[in-house]
């Protein structure tokens, strides 16, 4: 609960300059060194700007290789930022030293995609959940109490703490990962495809949990996913990424039902609807759009048709 104390009751910005959203990324460029001598580095993000307000969910959609996961990792300080800035609560957090970065851990947290590898298999759930608290200097007894509360919040039984991650199903493990992210009352959680590995019915329940937690705690989500229907369900606003750039942003209803950019339209029409008649209509619509694109200037080269090793 840091930072909320200094007088935002009436919404007055705490500093003189105009306040900005909780988390802002500006012209973010991320580059990974290429293999091979003197090759130019591989640019994954090409000047991306996003912002997330407190208590808001920004859905980040894109296909594989679009850079959506990298953007999340850059916010977490896990990806090498070549230029541009990330600001949290008005302070620049890109390029911080290890110590300052650690201080941010109470404010910015993460839930990863794969619930099978994001929990240390050798540690009990209690140890996993209390670790971030103990790092922050919480006394043992208090940490134990907090862990019980957290398990309750994510609707896991109280005795779950004594067990190892492998004794839980995928959905339950993801709940543990969510509890870990919540343990120190963060203000932003980066969610990297947190429901992609889950079954359909489990997925819906975990998403409901995300929404419920947000409504209760006011945490903001940067929600990375490839699934437009997931994004529609959870996001207030949506940003669509392609090839390391954001090509469209807007509120969730607009982007996921009436997108402007041809690529987003293509993305939307490509996702099959679970209704045979409507899917037939959507299929016809998709073919019509494809025909229009093909007949047009045809600058739109479908990425999958290019023969290259860029999917390595």
């Amino acid at each position, binding site marked *: 609960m840091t930072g909320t104390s200094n007088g935002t009751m009436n919404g007055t910005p705490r500093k003189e300059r105009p306040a900005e959203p909780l988390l802002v990324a500006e012209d973010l460029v991320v580059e990974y060194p290429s293999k091979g001598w003197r090759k130019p580095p591989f640019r994954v993000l090409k000047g991306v700007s996003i912002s997330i307000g407190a*208590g808001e969910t920004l859905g980040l959609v894109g296909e594989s290789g679009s850079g959506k996961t990298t953007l999340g990792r850059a916010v977490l300080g896990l990806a090498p930022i070549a230029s541009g800035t990330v600001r949290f609560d008005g302070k620049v957090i890109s390029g911080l030293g290890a110590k300052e970065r650690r201080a941010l851990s109470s404010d910015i947290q993460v839930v990863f995609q794969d619930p099978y590898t994001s929990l240390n298999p050798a540690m009990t759930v209690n140890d996993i959940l209390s670790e971030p608290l103990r790092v922050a200097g919480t006394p043992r007894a208090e940490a134990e109490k907090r862990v019980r509360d957290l398990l309750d919040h994510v609707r896991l039984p109280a005795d779950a703490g004594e067990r190892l991650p492998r004794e839980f199903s995928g959905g339950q493990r993801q709940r543990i990962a969510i509890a870990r992210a919540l343990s120190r009352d963060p203000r932003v959680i980066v969610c990297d495809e947190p429901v992609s590995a889950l079954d359909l019915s489990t997925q819906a329940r975990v998403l409901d949990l995300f929404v419920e937690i947000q409504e209760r705690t006011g945490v903001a989500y940067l929600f990375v996913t490839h699934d437009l229907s997931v994004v529609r369900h959870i996001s207030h606003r949506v940003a669509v990424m392609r090839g390391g750039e954001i090509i469209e942003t807007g509120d969730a209803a607009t982007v996921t039902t009436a997108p402007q950019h041809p690529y987003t339209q293509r993305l939307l029409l490509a996702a099959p609807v679970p209704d045979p008649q409507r899917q037939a209509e959507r299929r016809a619509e998709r073919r019509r759009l494809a025909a229009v694109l093909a007949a047009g200037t045809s600058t739109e080269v479908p990425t999958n048709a290019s023969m290259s090793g860029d999917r390595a």
Partner: protein
Amino acid sequence: MKLPDSDDTTGAVAPAVAAQGRAGILRRLLRNPVAVTCLVLLALISLASLFAPLLTSQDPARSSLTDSLAPMSGKHPLGGDGVGRDVLARLLYGGRTSLLGALLAVAVAVVIGVPAGLVAGYYRKWFDAVSSWVSNLLMAVPAIIVLLVVMSAVGQNTYLAMAVFGVLMSPGVFRLIRASVISVREELYVDAARVSGLTDARIIRRHILPVVQAPTIIQAAQMLGLGIVIQSGLEFLGLGSATQASWGSMLNDAFGNIYTKPELMVWPGLALAVTVAAFGLLGNALRDALDGTAVTGRKPSRGATTRKPGAEKKAPPVISEAQDTDDALLVLEGLTVSYPTAQGEKTVVDGVCLTVRRGEVLGLVGESGSGKSQTAFAILGLLPREAQVATTRLEFDGTELGRLGRAAMNRYRGHRIAYVPQEPMSNLDPSFRIGAQLVEPVRRHLGLSAAEARTKTLGLLERVGISDPERVFRAYPHQISGGMAQRVLIAGAVSCEPDLLIADEPTTALDVTVQAEVLDLMRSLQSERNMGVILVTHDFGVVADLCDRVTVMQTGAVVESAPVDQLFADPQHPYTRMLLASTLEDAEPRSALSLSRTVSASAAGAVGIAGTTDPAGVTNSAGITNTGRQEGPA
């Protein structure tokens, strides 16, 4: 949307599993008779060496000519050696030299190798480069020659030689540790620990050392054996300290008297063999004990869910169509698949019946563990050997497949029944060109010549929408994208004009735009060739797109089977209804910051792309923050 809370939230896990496994490596080790024997032997040998002065009153170095090659007696229980020293005393004291020397070597190797491996693996960069280079250099050096040089240079000191040998062994430890650290470092839980604010030292201690521990202990056990062998070898060559008793020098002495008193070889030889073998076997047993944890720690294989007998009352399956099997291409009745496990037999498919007509697309839908893939593999006859498969009827185009031998089944598989897998990349052999992989089955099944097969394959590649078939034909799998690999596999599947195509989640690994194209391709190929298709999937969107009929499976059994329109319009079974309710497609989009409708417009402005912020909106969104967080749990 409110969903019933199923077992996902109740945490129905047998607590017995919890205790097992964690309680440990030690207990599992003690359950292994070989390990126990080794541990007892090693303990005896160590204790005997340690308490040598209590076990014998003889001085191992005192020689007396009268006792030279003395027989066993009360004074010399194992007799005397070539220069009249007591064999038992030398054996006991010699154990000290051998064990301490080996321990020293291993300690040196571990003390150098583990920290260097940890730092190199965790931080990489220049230290990794330099230390790897040094380690490679050390490994290239012939150890025995270095030891001979050292001993001739600094004198015959056994322990110094073993310390040097430890340095020479350290690259082995270094490489092992470095490799394990690098693989653990990629794990998401290490990333999560970094995000949690753990220091590097703490991450290494809490998350990385425990993983590295096991291989280090195994390696150390093996190295102890090796150390004893090398040390004895040096002593045998007469390079050890002349005054110190050791097993190697005993062998040396015995070798000198091999014709006069060959039994002298027995005692040191026995001691060496037993000790070295014990270390080696203990290392293996440790590895097995640790592997036990590793295996149970892996994620459960798909479809391997244990069914709780009688835990839930299932509604009977709803089959909403006449079971008319006259024009059926494939009829499957009463399929049961089970696997033997430690807890008894586990049934993953239980009495599944399904029918595919010619030219019909059957969707086989279910969540993980429903047995849908197992069913598909059972039809193909491709289940693993340990699977126990039983069917009352498996009829393909009038032939009962269940009774066919392997050779007969091979004539159907790939020819009349084709298969498209989930992971296109792992189903292409990376060491062969794509053309070769496509041509081979065509030649085999259709008996075409090489040239004919090539023409046919190129035509197929073009048919599946590959714009430059010649190039793809010559390419290796790693040179094409995932979507194109799936097209190639589809081309391969339809190359022999099959009557039935079984596709197991053919688009799950693909991006959504590519998925749409691949589904289009499958639809057009299906109608063009009038194929029957079994499409295994978990995605109701894909079902709606492609299927004529749908069979829904839950925990190994069919719960509902209906024509596609009917299933979506009027699902009968509660499980089907639950699944359809879980799809998010028709969910209401969230409005911008639903906490306060009145501010949503300006809040949306405030949280727009950075730079377009307007201060008025921020006021509101900040206010929302406050209310929101006051209701927080803390």
